[in-house]
C-alpha cells in the first residue's frame, strides 16, 4: 500500500470482536484490518501498537459492513458475505469460513451490501443493499429464506426492534419501512422528507442512518437527524446538524451521530446539540461503541482517512489507529 493509496483511503465499517479486545475495520480497497485494542490501550503502548496486527484482503469492492457474532466476523463486499473465524484471525490466519451471495436479479452490476444485522430471535442475518431488497439468511443452514421487497432505491441502513419483531430499513428513496419479518411484508412506511420539520431539499431525501430504542427511532440523512416516537409515528425532536448524518446511536440518554464534517456530535434527546468533538477524518462514515467489556470501553469513529479515532473518554479524542 503506497502513500497515495493511504491518502485516498476511506474506512467504511468497524466491528469489535466478541471478547472486546480486537477491532476490525474495512476500507474502500476491500481490506480488513484487525487492531488490538488491548495493546493500543495498554499504558506502555507505542506507535507500533496503533498499527493493525493483521491486514488482509477480504473482498474486491469496498467493505461497507462488518458484523460480529459469537464466533465469526461477517464482512460484506460487492454482493457477497464472508465469515471469518475470530479465533483464526487471532492466530493471524485469514481464511474465509464461508462466503454466501444473496440471489440477485440484475446482472449488469453486482449490487453492494450496505448494512447487515443479526436477528437473534430466529438466528437469521438481515442484509440490505444495492438491489433495493432485504434478504434474510438463516444462519443455521446458510440459505436465504426470504426477501422483503418494497423500497424503490437502494437500502442504506437497517435496524431491529426485537420486542416487536420488526425490522426497520432506511433507503435512498427517502422512506423508512417497518417490516414484520414473520409475515414478510411491510407494515409501515414513513417518508421522512415529506415532513416539513425534517426536510432539507438542498441535500436530498435519502435516509442514511437509523437507530431504534424501544418506542423511539432515530433517523437522518438528506433530511435532518430526527427523533421519532414510533407509536404515534411523529417526529418529536429535530437536531440541527449540518450535512447528512451517516451513523447515529443511542447511548445512556445521549445520541452520538457522525456524518459529513470532522466531528462527533453529542445530542440530547430534547433536540439540542450538546457538543461537537473534533476528530481526524474530514468526514465520518462509521461510529462504534465497545460496550461488551468493561475493560476496553471505547468509542471509535472512522471515515475518509486511513485513521480510526479512538475515544476512551467520549468527550475527546485519545489517539488514532491507522491502517
Amino acid at each position, binding site marked *: 500500500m503506497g*502513500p497515495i493509496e493511504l491518502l*485516498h483511503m476511506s474506512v*467504511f465499517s468497524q466491528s469489535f470482536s466478541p471478547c472486546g479486545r480486537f477491532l476490525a475495520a474495512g476500507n474502500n480497497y476491500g481490506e480488513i484490518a484487525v487492531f488490538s485494542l488491548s495493546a493500543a490501550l495498554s499504558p506502555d503502548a507505542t506507535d507500533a501498537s496503533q498499527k493493525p496486527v493483521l491486514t488482509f484482503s477480504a473482498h474486491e*469492492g469496498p467493505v461497507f459492513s462488518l458484523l460480529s457474532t459469537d464466533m465469526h466476523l461477517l464482512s460484506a463486499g460487492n454482493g457477497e458475505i464472508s465469515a471469518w473465524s475470530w479465533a483464526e484471525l487471532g492466530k493471524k490466519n485469514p481464511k474465509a469460513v464461508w462466503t454466501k451471495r444473496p440471489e440477485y436479479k440484475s446482472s*449488469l*452490476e453486482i449490487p453492494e451490501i450496505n448494512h447487515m444485522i443479526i436477528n437473534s430471535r430466529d438466528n437469521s442475518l438481515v442484509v440490505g443493499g444495492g438491489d433495493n431488497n432485504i434478504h434474510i439468511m438463516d444462519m443455521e443452514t446458510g440459505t436465504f429464506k426470504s426477501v422483503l421487497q418494497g423500497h424503490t432505491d437502494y437500502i*442504506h441502513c437497517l435496524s431491529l426492534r426485537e420486542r416487536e419483531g420488526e425490522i426497520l430499513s432506511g433507503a*435512498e428513496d427517502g422512506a423508512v419501512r417497518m417490516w414484520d419479518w414473520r409475515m414478510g411484508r411491510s407494515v409501515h412506511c414513513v417518508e421522512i422528507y415529506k415532513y416539513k420539520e425534517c426536510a432539507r431539499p438542498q441535500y436530498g431525501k435519502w435516509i442514511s442512518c437509523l437507530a431504534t430504542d424501544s418506542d423511539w427511532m432515530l433517523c437522518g440523512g438528506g433530511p435532518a437527524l430526527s427523533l421519532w416516537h414510533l407509536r404515534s409515528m411523529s417526529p418529536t425532536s429535530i437536531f440541527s446538524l449540518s450535512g447528512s448524518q451517516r451513523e447515529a446511536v443511542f447511548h445512556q440518554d445521549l445520541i452520538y451521530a457522525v456524518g459529513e464534517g470532522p466531528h462527533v456530535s453529542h445530542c440530547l434527546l430534547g433536540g439540542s446539540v450538546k457538543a461537537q468533538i473534533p476528530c481526524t477524518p*474530514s*468526514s465520518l462514515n462509521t461510529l462504534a461503541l465497545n460496550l461488551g467489556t468493561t475493560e476496553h470501553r471505547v468509542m471509535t469513529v472512522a471515515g475518509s482517512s486511513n485513521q480510526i479515532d479512538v475515544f476512551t473518554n467520549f468527550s475527546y479524542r485519545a489517539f488514532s489507529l491507522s491502517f
Partner: protein
Amino acid sequence: MPLSHSAATPPSLKLDTETHKFDQKKLIKDMSSDPLKKRKTKVIRNDGGTPETKRLRGDGDQDVRTYNEEVELESRDPEQDYTLYKNTCEALATLMGEIQELKASGAKEGSVEVETKRRQGCSHFITLKKLNRLSHMRLKKARDQTHEAKQKVDVLHLQLQNLLYEVMHLQKEIGKCLEFKSQHEEIELVSVDEFFKDAPAEISRPHLTKDDPHQLTLARLDWELEQRKRLAEQYKSSLCTKEKILKGIELKKEYLSSLQPGLQAIMQASLPVQEYLSMPFERVQKQAEVARHLPPPLYVLLVQASAYGQACDKNLSVSINGDVDEAKALSRPPEDSQDDESDSDAEEEQQNTKRRRGTVGVQLDDKRKEMLKRHPLSLCIDLKCKDGSVLHLFFYYLMNLNILTVKAKVSASADLSGAISAGELLNPESLLNCLYASDDGQETPNPTNRYQFDKVGITTFADYVSELGHAYIWVQKLGGLQFSSDTPQVEGVHSSLSASHMESTIKLLRGRLLARLALHKQFSSLEHNIVPVSTECQHLFPAKVVSRLARWTMMSYEDFLELGFVQHVVNAGLVRETDLFFMATVERGTARLQAAVVLNPRYPEITPLFSLSLLWKGERSGRTDDNLRALESEVNVFRSELQGPRPGLQLLTNQIQRLCVCLDVYLETESQVCDGSEGPIEFPREKMCLRSVRGPNRLKPFKYNHPQGFFSHR
C-alpha cells in the same frame, strides 16, 4: 683493685706501715730540706712557665742545688704512691682514733701524748698533700702525651686522604683513556680474512700484524685508503663516460625531432583517409593520451562509460574537455598523478604562497576558491535519443573535496520555445534532480567535506551548486567513489561500483530526458487548452467530453503551499521542494475545477498527484466533499489504467483527461440528485450511468467501462 688489695691484706699492714714510715721520713727530709725552693718552683709554675724555662731559670739562679719535682715524679711509681696514700690515710685514722681515746680518757689539752700524736698527724697530712700534687702532675703529663699522639694521628690521616684523592684522579684518567674513540672505528673496513687475502704483503705485513692488533688495524686502514683512492678514480672515469653517452643521446634526439614535422605532415595527410574509412584511430589515441591526466574518478567514469557505450549503447559518446597542459602541470611528477596525496600537497603549497599576500578576508575567499577548485579536465558524456535530441552531461572533479559534480544541457531536435510552463522542465538546474529517490545533489555526499567547509566558512554546498554543478550520489557512484555514512574516510576508487551502476543510471538518464521531452511537448498543447490523447489511450475515455481544460500554469513551491486544499497532501509528506508544481483549471459552464498538480522529478515512475477544488455553488474540495475525494483518487490512484504504453509518458495528460471526464459525471449526476425545480437543468445527463449513487457515502460512478461506454462504481 688496689682498694680490694688493701682490704684483703690487713695482716701485712704492719709491715707496710713500717716501709711507710721510712718513706715518710725520707719525704719529710726532702721537703724540710728545701721548703723555700719548693715554694719558689710553685710560684714559677703558677706564672705559667714550662718546666724547661723553670729549669733554665733555676740553672741560672742556683747552680747545683736544684730540686725538680718532675724528675722526682718520673722516678716514682704510681702504684707505690697509691699504697703510700692508703697507708697514710689509715695511719691518720688510727692517730685520730688514739687522740680521741686519749681525750675521752681525760687527757689534758697540750699533753705530750696528744702533742706527739698531732705531730705525727701533721706529717701524715703533708704526705697526703705531696701525693695530691703528684697525682695532679701525673694527670697533666698524661694529658699532654695524649694530645701529642692525637696530633700525630691527624697528620697521618691527612696524608692518607691526599693519597686516596691521587688514586682516584689517576683512575679517572685511566677511564678516560680507555673510553677514547678513534674516528677509524666508524669506517667500515673489510673483514680481516678478506684483508689478508686481497691486500698486498707490503701493506698487510703479516709478520707484524698477525699478533699485534694495533698494527693490524693500522694496516687495514692503509688498505682502505688505498682502495678508496682507487674507487674515486674509477668514479671519475665513469662520469666521463656518462657525459659522452649523454652527448650521443642528445645528438640522436636532435635527429629524431628533425623527423617530427615530416611525420606530422604525413599524419595530417592521412586524416581524411581515416575519416573516410570511419576508423577514428587518432581520436581514440589522443583521448587515451589525455586520459592519463584525468583524476581517478573521472578516469573510471571515462573507462566505464566508453566501455558501456561500446558494448550496449551506440548512442553514447564520451569526450574529454579542458586544459591538458594545466592538468599536466598539476599532476607533476607525472607518475604520481593517480595519487591523492600529490593533490593535497599541491593544495598546501598554493595555500602557502597565497598566505603571504592579502588581508584575512581575501585570504579566506582565496581559501574557499581553492577548496572548491575543479580539476582542469572534465568529461562530457553525450546521450543521443532516437528523435535526435541530445543530453550533454559535463562531469567535473572537485579536487580538494574529492567529489564529482555534473552539469546537464539538453539540445533538442525540435524547437522547444513554445511552452511557458515547460521552462522548468529542461532547466539544467533541476533536470537531473532525484534521478534516484531523494537525491537532489544539493549536499555534498562526502562526509569529510563538512569539516573542510567549517574551516573556510562555507555553510552549505547548495550555495555553490549553480556554479559547480550538482553532486548527485549517482555521479559519485559512476566515478567509483563510495562514501558510507558511518565510515568517513574515502575507500579509494572502485571501478566495479561504477560498472554496477552504469547501466541503470544511463537508462534512468535516458528515461528522464524522454519523459521531460514528452512533457515539454504535452505542455505546449496543454497551454493551448488541448489535452493530447494518443490513439492507444482513446479507449480510456468516452468520445464526448464536455469539460475543457481552461488553463495550465506553472506554480512555485511557496505558492503551492499557500493553497488551502492541498494541505492534506503537504501534511502527508508527499510534497518536496524538488517537485514541480502546476495548476490546471477545468471548466464546464459555471463550474470551475481547480487541480493543483505535484509533479515528482521522477515522473513517470512516480504518479503526479492531483488535489481538487471545485467552484460551483460555493466552494468544495476533496476535504469537504466525498465525491471530489473519490474523483481525486480516481485520478491519482489508478495509475496502471492511465499510464498507456510503457514507459507511461502519457500518464499526466491521461490524468487530466480523466479529470475532465469525471467532472462531467460529477456535474451531470449532481444536478440530477438535487431537485432541478429551479429553472432548466444546467448540465443535462449525457453520460450513461447504471446508478447515480451507491454505498453509504453516496459516491458517483466515476469508472468508465470501455466497450459498453457506461459509467459504474469502483
